[in-house]
Structure formats: C-alpha cells, structure tokens
C-alpha cells in the first residue's frame, strides 16, 4: 500500500534527522515508489528510471546529515530526482535511445487504467483517448513545463513544493504550469 505524504510514518520521521539517518530503509520503502514513478513518467524508460531512483536515494543517504528540514522529505527527494532526471535527459546517448524507442513502440499508458464498470464502453474509449492525448501532449512539452506539469498532476505537489523541488520561483512555476495546461488543453481539442 502506498502511503500519502502526510501519513503517520512521515509524521513520525520528519521531525527527527537522527531518525532519517537511523531508519533510512523505512524512508526508501515509503518514497521509492513516488521517486520511481516520477522518474519513469519523466524519462519513459524503465532502466533509466530505476537508475535515477537508485542514484536519488544514494545521494540522499550521503546528504542526509545536511537535510535542513525546511521542506518535506518528499520535496527534498524530488529535488534530487529532478536534477538527476535533468542530467539524464541531457545525456546525448539517452536522447538517442529515447528517440529510437519512442518511434518504435509508443507506450499505451491509457491501457493501464482499470476500466470503470460504471462507464459505457464508448465513454471509456473516449476517456482513454483523452488520457492518451494528455500523455502525448506532456511528452511534447519543454523540459521545465513537463517537470512542473508532472509534479503537479501526477505527484499532487502544490506550487510551493514544486518551486522548492525545481529551484524556480513560485510565479515561474505558475507560468510554466499555465503554459503546459494551454498545450494540454489544445491537444484535448479545447481552445487555448
């Protein structure tokens, strides 16, 4: 079961840096799925996402003493992940393989959603189309817009958390988010 950011475990861990150092495994268990998911949806590559996730926790482990607790644990980990993902995206070899994989085998992310029995097959198909449209629109967003969009709409982070994780000002985050939303809405068939 995935725990929410305000779960009992996080509340128990957050106030004590010593706990962070002492029970790092618990942190990994709690946040690994989130970091992995963000890496996977950002990179769309399983191996690269696993690599980034491992690097993220390795760096967090080495930097745990310096964690100032001026943000939540998830936000801090996401900050590390955002930097690692940025490095990975700029890696020319990764760019080559990503281009190759995107052209050969598109990901059917909409197909992974469990069908809602309350919807008619037509309504479900329409919804799948819309999910696929958002997925495609997100892929075409510039890097920063995509990062902000995914942190907001996949990871449910608020503007302040996103600002901390990305190192942007809150207003800049909002601007990127609005632009991303415009692109997504256009892809969905609305008017920007």
């Amino acid at each position, binding site marked *: 079961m995935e725990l929410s950011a305000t779960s009992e475990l996080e509340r128990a861990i957050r106030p004590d840096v010593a706990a962070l150092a002492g029970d790092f495994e618990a942190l990994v268990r709690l946040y690994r*799925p989130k970091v*992995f998911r963000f890496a996977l949806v950002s990179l769309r590559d399983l191996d690269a996402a696993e690599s980034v996730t491992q690097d993220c926790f390795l760096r967090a482990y080495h930097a745990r003493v310096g964690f100032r607790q001026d943000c939540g644990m998830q936000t801090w980990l996401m900050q590390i992940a955002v930097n690692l993902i940025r490095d990975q995206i700029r890696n020319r070899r990764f760019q080559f393989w990503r281009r190759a994989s995107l052209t050969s085998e598109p990901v059917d992310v909409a197909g992974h959603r469990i069908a809602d029995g309350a919807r008619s097959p037509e309504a479900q198909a329409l919804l799948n189309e*819309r999910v696929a449209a958002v997925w495609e629109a997100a892929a075409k967003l510039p890097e920063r817009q995509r990062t902000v969009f995914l942190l*907001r709409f996949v990871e449910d982070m608020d503007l302040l958390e996103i600002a901390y994780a990305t190192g942007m000002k809150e207003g800049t985050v909002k601007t990127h*988010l609005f632009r991303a*939303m*415009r692109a997504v809405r256009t892809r969905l068939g609305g008017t920007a």
Partner: protein
Amino acid sequence: MRRPSIEEHLSSDRLSECILGEPDAWIAQHIERCPACRAELGNLREALGEFRGAVRSWSESQAQAALAIDSRPPESHSWIASHQLALALLLAAVCILTSIVWHGGESAAPASDAVLLNQVDAEVSRAVPSSMEPLMKLVVQE
C-alpha cells in the same frame, strides 16, 4: 485583470486557476452560470484525473515487471546452464579421448606397414613362385 462578460468564455489560464484551486470569486461565479465553461472545466479535470490514475497504474505495473525480472529464480537458469556446460565438457572429453586412441592406432601402423612391405619385396624378388621352387632345384641339379 480583465473580466470576461457572461457571453465570453473563460480562457485556458482562468480554467487552470480553477484546476489549481482557489479561483477568484468572479471566476467561480462565471463557472456556475456558464454551462459551456463548466463542461470544459469538468472535462479537463476528468482527463487530468484519469491521466494521473493511468500513469500511476502504468508505473506500478512497470515496477512489478522490473521486480519480477529481478526476482526470477536464478537456480533454474543456472541448473540448465551447468548441465549444458557439463554435457559440453563430456563431449569434449570424448572427442579428445577418441582422437588420442585414433592417433595411437595410427602410430602403430608404420611398423606393420614396414613388415608387409618387406614381405612384398621378398615375394617380388623371388625368381619363381614359392610353389615352383622344388622344381627349379631339380633343374639346377641337372
């Protein structure tokens, strides 16, 4: 910020403000009174909500797939590999032994060949066949 009239629909940024939460009061009022904007906002919210759900399901399935690959029992694979290796070694050993036996037989052959050649030489060098040799002795005595 210019407020649109009731006939004018909300822009993408105004709809985004609604989705991000805490829209201005006039935007909320417009949404209440404008069915088109309300429907647009509902569709956008639903698409983003489903997108989140789909991405999370996909991520979980990918994580499980990765876990399945990592936790695949290595014993069966190594068992097959070790048996294949043992079989290959056995075949190699058989080949080597066969080769040694074969070449060993070949090394004994020259000696027997030499004996045979000497016999042939002896037969060829006879003046008459061996069965006629007694007759030849009588002729010589005469």
